[in-house]
């Protein structure tokens, strides 16, 4: 019996955009054991949040992660608002949804690109990133920045999207939808792509439930678990159904995310159609007190903010449980038994965000 190979996979590894290490134990190229070692992006953000003014924390929360930043600030604001009984104007809610969905799209497109890169489809990566640029541009013109929108604030939003801009948004969405249509046959039907995704990294619905998987990982196993259906922000007034698949493999996760892209296009369009008039923010006075749990749906699944205020401007405790954090146990179930070639694909189809995970 030959010795097993032991290799470090990460932290500085070109297929992983983020520092994460897996200690892989392999036989030939078959992974026998994969143990994650993280902590390369742990900053201690939650602790910092306890030292800052809760208003400032909005900007801090946004920087938990650059990929899902807006929804982080949104979740935080929703939590504080609930704690302080602030009623957010309707228009602000719709605007929040619009930016959330833009963020979801940019996140999914980025994921698409990175996954394509992981299975060595360079031009698909380029195409995904190119499409994503349209969204980024949209965000820049509506919010003033490409990534860190900074538009969410306690009590509403900081910027309005004038209806005059809707035309531009619609055009951009059209072009995205067109690009997606063009990529669809490749992503969903191409032989080589399917060869790399179908049947790889499969988990059963039972396993997904036990490991507490969320977001597309859970949806790909048939759980229609999408926190947007609870109707936070303006989602209650929009019409959509969570996307699900049943196979539970990398391909199913891909399908889910790809369908969610279309869904987001649709949601933004609905927002524009249903956008109410009115103020975009209400003034907020006082300080938060008490405990609250705020939940929203991130691109990768549900995020949980536990906020504990003590009546001062500083928070007593802020805890963020991000979707990737919840998906890592599922990842650990997927890896053993796969081939080394599949490792990046499996990792990327849970769409890990280590920055979120470690905060």
């Amino acid at each position, binding site marked *: 019996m030959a010795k097993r190979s*032991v290799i470090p996979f990460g932290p500085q590894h*070109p*297929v992983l955009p983020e520092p994460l290490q897996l200690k892989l134990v392999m036989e030939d*190229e078959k992974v026998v054991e994969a143990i994650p070692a993280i902590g390369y992006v742990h900053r201690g953000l939650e602790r910092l949040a306890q030292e800052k003014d809760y208003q400032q924390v909005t900007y801090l929360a946004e920087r938990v992660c650059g990929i899902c930043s807006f929804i982080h600030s949104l979740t935080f604001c929703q939590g504080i608002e609930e704690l302080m009984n602030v009623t957010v104007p309707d228009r602000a809610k719709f605007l929040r949804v619009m930016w959330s969905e833009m963020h979801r799209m940019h996140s999914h497109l980025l994921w698409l690109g990175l996954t394509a890169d992981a299975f*060595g489809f360079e031009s698909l990566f380029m*195409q995904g990133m190119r499409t994503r640029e349209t969204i980024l541009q949209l965000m820049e013109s509506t919010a003033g920045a490409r990534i860190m929108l900074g538009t969410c604030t306690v009590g509403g939003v900081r910027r309005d999207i004038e209806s005059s801009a809707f035309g531009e948004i619609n055009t951009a969405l059209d072009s995205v939808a067109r690009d997606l249509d063009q990529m669809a046959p490749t992503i969903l039907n191409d032989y*080589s792509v399917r060869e790399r995704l179908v049947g790889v990294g499969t988990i059963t619905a039972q396993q997904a439930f036990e490991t507490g998987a969320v977001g597309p990982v859970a949806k790909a196993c048939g759980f229609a678990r999408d926190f947007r259906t609870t109707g936070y922000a303006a989602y209650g007034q929009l019409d959509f159904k969570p996307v699900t698949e049943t196979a539970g493999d990398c391909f199913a996760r891909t399908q889910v995310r790809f369908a969610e892209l279309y869904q987001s296009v649709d949601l933004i369009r609905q927002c524009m159609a249903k956008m109410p008039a009115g103020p975009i923010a209400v003034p907020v006075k006082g300080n938060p007190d008490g405990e609250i749990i705020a939940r929203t749906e991130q691109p990768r699944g549900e995020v949980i903010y536990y906020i504990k205020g003590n009546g001062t401007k500083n928070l007593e405790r802020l805890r963020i449980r991000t979707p990737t954090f919840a998906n890592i146990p599922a990842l650990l179930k997927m890896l053993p038994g796969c081939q080394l070639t*599949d490792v*990046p694909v499996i990792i990327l189809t849970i769409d890990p965000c280590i920055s979120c995970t470690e905060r």
Partner: protein
Amino acid sequence: MSETIIKLLIAIVAAPLVGAIIAGLDRKVTARMQGRVGPPILQPIYDVLKLLIKQPIFLNRVQILYAFMHLAFMMLTLVLLILGQDLLLTLFVHAFATISLILGGMCVRSPYSRIGSQRKTLMLLAYEPILVIMVVGIYLSQGSFMASDVVAAGAKPLLLSLPLVFIAYMMAMAIELQKSPFDVASSHHAHQEIVKGVTLEYAGPFLAIIEIAHFYEVFLLFAVVYFFWAPYNLANAAVGMALAAGAFLFHIVLDNTFARLPAMWIVRFMWVIVFLMATTNIIWLYRLGTI
């Protein structure tokens, strides 16, 4: 004799340049296919020149020896071809050039480099029989193993008698050019699970040596298309050119429309489908009794 020597010298100098320009064109066209502007066409040459002046970092000395062996045997392959030598022998020399590279990747204690080498060995395993079959096919249709006979005036055009083998050769070529879906051992953009694979631990001038050897290889591969598959005489140079250009485009399109597939998939594909294809062609030749 002296004419041969001059021919050789020109070839040895010109081949890597041509190879580099082909590689540069490749990058440019790839970029355009991805909707980008892309680098200048001479980029590969800049790259090599740059590598030559970088700090020569290395892991162990054996590695360096292998790099030179890789280059020397690649050059020898070219020389044997130009001398019109036995194709099979040339092929073996070429295989050994690849083996040198493999060994260079294996002789370091760097897991990714070693895994890259192992995959490269599998790739060699995948395409070498195809190339041998190709040479056999050439023998069957030309009655000789000698390169000089294949390109001799009046030789039969290979494409007509070996169409399937030509396709098989395209596949083997794609592996050697490290094109998707066959870029498992080392790819030009290093975004893969084994980083850069075989050449991971080569840096600076040593990497430049390997790059130059790669230019030779690119030249060789296209030269085979140009000289062998269309009858080699000046009147038909255009056909050869078109064929080479077609092959070039084919590989770029292939690269841009496929995901990387696992090494074992490639071995299976080459040994089952491509091998069968090539042997069908060969059997057909046997049946025709062209021999």
